């Protein structure tokens, strides 16, 4: 019986996963189909960019600085073994622009702004505000979800760029200012080794994909939350868990497609 129960649980988990994917796709399609209506009011999207960006800016800047400091320190210790400490700028920049900037910015966004989005929409649902919109013949997908989706889509790449920029500054502080790596080598290795299209643009594409995934997951969890305190709390937790796993999983796929030879 235990084996049967295990198989049944596995089957249920698979069904839940497929249902989740289906709901994700349906809601995304609904938002995309209303793109015209959503962009007719850019003020609403601007307000969300301001709100979501402000929510995450401080944590992104502080985290970016510390990641850059650690990366500078660890990079220097490793490169020194091979007498390549002049390449510290290149290592810090590539690590941040290709991977750490988009990934950590998206993870922090999921934890800070994503949870806020889920809780806000879940509470709007619990307070019948979404139903009130419906009865006023106002489409909640176009009026509430759409501006938040495009807000997140715009904000995550901006935050990832800021994260990388501050991180590089952190690497420079440790490597050049504190340890004494040659500043000319630090910057010239970086500008010579970082390719705009292969590294910077691919990093931006990654952060756009992460922005879509995390924002959409946050909106879906809030919109589908049980309209109770427990339901909203559960949805908020799921936003962080599912959003973070989605970012890490997508990062592997995108890295393999962009930089690998798989």
């Amino acid at each position, binding site marked *: 019986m235990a084996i049967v129960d295990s198989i049944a649980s596995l089957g249920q988990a698979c069904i839940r996963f497929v249902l989740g994917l289906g709901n994700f796709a349906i809601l995304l399609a609904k938002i995309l189909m209303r793109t015209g209506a959503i962009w007719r009011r850019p003020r609403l999207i601007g307000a969300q960019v301001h709100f979501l960006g402000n929510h995450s800016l401080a944590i992104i800047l502080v985290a970016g600085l510390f990641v850059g400091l650690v990366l500078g320190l660890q990079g220097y210790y490793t490169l020194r073994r091979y007498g390549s400490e002049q390449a510290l700028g290149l290592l810090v920049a590539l690590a941040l622009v290709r991977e750490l900037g988009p990934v950590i910015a998206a993870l922090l966004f999921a934890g800070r702004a994503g949870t806020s989005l889920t809780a806000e929409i879940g509470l709007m649902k619990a*307070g019948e*505000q979404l139903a009130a919109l*419906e009865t*006023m013949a106002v*489409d909640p997908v176009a009026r509430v979800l759409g501006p938040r989706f495009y807000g997140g889509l715009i904000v995550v790449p901006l935050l990832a760029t800021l994260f990388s920029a501050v991180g590089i500054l952190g690497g420079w502080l440790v490597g050049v200012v504190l340890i004494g790596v040659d500043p000319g080598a630090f910057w010239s290795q970086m500008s010579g080794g970082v390719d705009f299209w292969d590294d910077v643009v691919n990093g931006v594409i990654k952060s756009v994909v992460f922005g879509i995934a995390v924002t959409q997951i946050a909106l879906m969890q809030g919109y589908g939350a049980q309209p109770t305190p427990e339901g909203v709390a559960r949805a908020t937790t799921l936003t962080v868990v599912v959003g973070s796993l989605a970012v890490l999983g997508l990062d592997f796929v995108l890295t393999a497609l962009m930089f690998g030879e798989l």
Partner: protein
Amino acid sequence: MPSDDPVAVQQKAAVAPDAPGASPVVAFRRLSFGYGDRQIIDGVSFEIRSGQVVALMGGSGVGKTTLLRLISGLVAPQQGTVEVFGKPLDSTHQTRLYEARRRMGLLFQFGALFTDLTCFENVAFPIREHTNLSESMIRDLVLLKLECVGLRGAAELKPSEISGGMARRVALARAIALDPELILYDEPFAGLDPISLGVTANLIRGLNNALGATSVVVTHDVAETFAIADRIFVFAPSPTGAKLAAQGTPEELRMSEDPFVRQFLDGRMDGPVRFHYPAPPIGQAFGLGGP
């Protein structure tokens, strides 16, 4: 006593109480609805005619609010149809559904105000969404609506800064912002103090007359409802879902000998509706033996 309220009686007398010739604004045709396996409404048919204030009454959980949600298309019937403004409500066709909804206003039980907006902005919301009026025109309209519910002075307050009763009055101002033809009220009298209760009852009647609208009120409050309603539908629970137990004018229902109507109107514990939820004998629950 509310039924002796001269304003309400005078306002009520201004419209034909039964208006048999008037066209139905809402019609339920053999409608059944349930949530999952739980059947809520079983084969209900009735019509709500234009210009009337109609009350839907019955015990808690009998499905009155669900009827309002069916009229507004928030939920779809499992069997039968709901006709609103002479057309079947098709909740799968968003454009047609929204066309019907633009002609109605719904007052939610707890107001459902947007908590991040002021009272003014809440009332202005549907006007901004559906019209291209100038800001000065919107301001005048909103202040007029807030004046109707006695809250012009609270225009700049947030919902968190006003009482629950005031929030419901702001929600009423929002529901009537676009002068709807059909106004739906979900428990408008719940939790109101006696002054607000009488004022709200008269407001519902007055607004209905002033706008030439049709009002559907879901309520338990017998006295206030009988003072303002033209027609009352009483729903009774049954094992297969709620059924329409009685209907008529307040006078007809007062004379009714139907046991359920009598129990409901007189507030009796004994009658066709059991007060206690089905449970094992009390002695058994406390381990005292017995049957």
